């Protein structure tokens, strides 16, 4: 009896809370999937991000939302894949069977998804790979900032700052991650090949995590101390973690820290003279281009049915960081 009562009270609470949360959401108007009453002449577009808990994916989703508001004949639904390839594939399947007119895919593993995307495209559902693409499907649209280019701009900038015989430590993303591999390749081609005297003291997987970057740097400082001239990291979080460790050891001023991603954390860090430089894949530009390509394909303006777009990447340093701080404050990624 008592259990039942407790349970029913609980359920009422859960319902009340979910109603509150639901209302809050639609009041904010930022979430997708709320627009249930779809008009017949509106194209249904699905966006399948990798993981909405990742800063970049959620930023891209909200920029896409904004971009789609500019078109009254398209509506966007966001379906999270929670970083599971399996989930993303079954969501794609669901979208096709539910008659979505267009799928925008922020792929988890592009190479693994190519064949399936190929199949859908051939069966008549156009697909766009956004942000990441291995160009495995000829007829799929693609709007990306090349991860290799991201590595290139930071590496090129780093070369102007570092001595030709600098000692660096390298922080990598998770094993097998395309972004990490491509960015690392750019460093190899741009910096390590051309400056053969640059010594890589050590190179480890930091799994994109700030705490791992911190732990690794603490150990490296034990072994190499102030011999380290620069930390070359494949993302910003690990680079900032390494900075925290160096600061703690009193060595931060003697070192440079290079990241990639250029999101709010990095902008703040550069402004505070911590991180030296980073590169940004601009989700706003990406979303605008994505919406344009999507619209042109759906309305038949694009006769081929696909378009491949590469958006430029931006180097962020102390010189131009102010502009990004302002932007991130405007779009709510930075609060103050």
């Amino acid at each position, binding site marked *: 009896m008592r259990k039942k009562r407790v349970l029913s009270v609980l359920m009422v609470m859960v319902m009340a809370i979910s109603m509150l949360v639901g209302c809050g959401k639609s009041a904010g108007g930022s979430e997708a999937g709320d627009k249930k009453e779809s008009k017949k002449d509106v194209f249904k577009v699905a966006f399948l991000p990798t993981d909405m*808990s990742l800063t970049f*994916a*959620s*930023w891209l989703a909200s920029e896409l939302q904004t971009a789609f508001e500019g078109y009254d004949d398209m509506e966007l639904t966001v379906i999270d894949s929670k970083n599971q390839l399996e989930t993303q594939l079954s969501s794609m399947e669901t979208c096709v069977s539910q008659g979505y007119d267009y799928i925008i895919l922020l792929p988890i593993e592009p190479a693994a998804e190519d064949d399936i995307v190929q199949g859908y495209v051939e069966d008549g559902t156009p697909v766009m790979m956004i942000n990441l693409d291995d160009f495995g499907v000829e007829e799929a649209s693609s709007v990306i900032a090349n991860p290799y280019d991201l590595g290139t701009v930071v590496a090129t900038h780093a070369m102007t700052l570092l001595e030709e015989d600098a000692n660096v430590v390298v922080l990598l993303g998770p094993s097998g991650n395309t972004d990490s591999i491509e960015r690392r390749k750019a460093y190899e081609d741009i910096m390590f090949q051309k400056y053969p005297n640059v010594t890589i003291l050590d190179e480890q997987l930091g799994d994109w995590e700030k705490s791992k970057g911190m732990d690794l740097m603490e150990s490296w400082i034990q*072994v190499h101390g102030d011999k380290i001239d620069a930390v070359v990291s494949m993302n910003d979080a690990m680079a900032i973690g390494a900075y*925290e460790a160096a600061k703690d050891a009193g060595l931060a001023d003697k070192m440079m820290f290079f990241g990639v991603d250029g999101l709010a*954390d990095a902008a703040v860090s550069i402004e505070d003279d911590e991180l030296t430089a980073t590169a940004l894949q601009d989700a706003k530009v990406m979303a605008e281009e994505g919406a344009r390509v999507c619209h042109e394909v759906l309305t038949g303006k694009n006769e081929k049915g696909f378009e491949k777009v590469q958006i430029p990447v931006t180097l962020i340093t102390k010189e131009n960081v102010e502009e990004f701080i302002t932007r991130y404050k405007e779009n709510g990624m930075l609060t103050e």
Partner: protein
Amino acid sequence: MKLKTKPNLSKYSLILILIGMIAICSLLSENFLTRANITNIFKQVSIVTICAFAQGMIIISGGIDLSIGFLAGMSGTFACIMYVSTGNLLIAFLFGLLLGAAVGAVNGLFVAYFDLPPFIVTLAMQSVCFGIICLYTGGQNVYKIGGFKVLGQSSVAGVIPITVVFMLVMLLITHFVLKYTKFGRYLYAIGGNPEASIAAGIQVCKVKWAAFIVSGLFAAVAGMVMMGRLNAGIPSEGGGFETDAITATVIGGTSFSGGAGTAFGTFLGSIIIGVLNNIMNLMGVDSYLQMIIKGFIIVLAVLADSLSKKQKTSVKIMASSSDA
């Protein structure tokens, strides 16, 4: 009615394993046995160790708590947000603790009073915790946390890092609770033989519920210390701590089926993993190789421990506890 175990021997065997490792490591790298490096090891294990104390208590009582990592991430980040908006560290800290206790209470409610398997309840709670914080922040991390970082980046007397102080305080609390309180003894009793403890008049439900609340509190402390150390509120950083915590407790001699284990054992288990990670990084061992070596050494450590226990003590009575 003395089910309390005397795990002294297993404790010594762990110390021997650790001393052996330290001896080998100091031969392998001249940077190993320096004060700064030893401090690093303690710093790096401190947060996981706090989680492991919580996990240890739950495992001793025959349960498991998989929500620890994400709960730490959630309460730590919310505490950051609270600090940023109020500027009061005490309020932020208490708020974090409150969240931890609340989530723990929900876990405990379902496990103890609705008799659901703790594995499933806490697994579900992982996703709820992460969802709540991401919903609130919109997937963004919290930066510029200012004074909040004293919880993770300051030091006491200029020598001992605050994270280590937190770990040691939690160690003493856990030790005290397990050894000198009724609640602690009940945890062993419930984990060792649930039927007998009901027969003995222990309010099993209440004790289990309380255990999850304590676990939530510990996770919240770990989370806040972690965000202080990271100098940012990053909800995802807590993920995976629950399994690291399980590893530490089990290496530390806690019986996975409940009823046995100590705070110091867990502490040593965590240090052993920390030393292992540290020496491999000092030597620049390849990342992939590190994973393999770590796996093998963990199995070896547990094996050595269990062999020594079998030799030296008559094994404790372990009633086949029906996994609630």
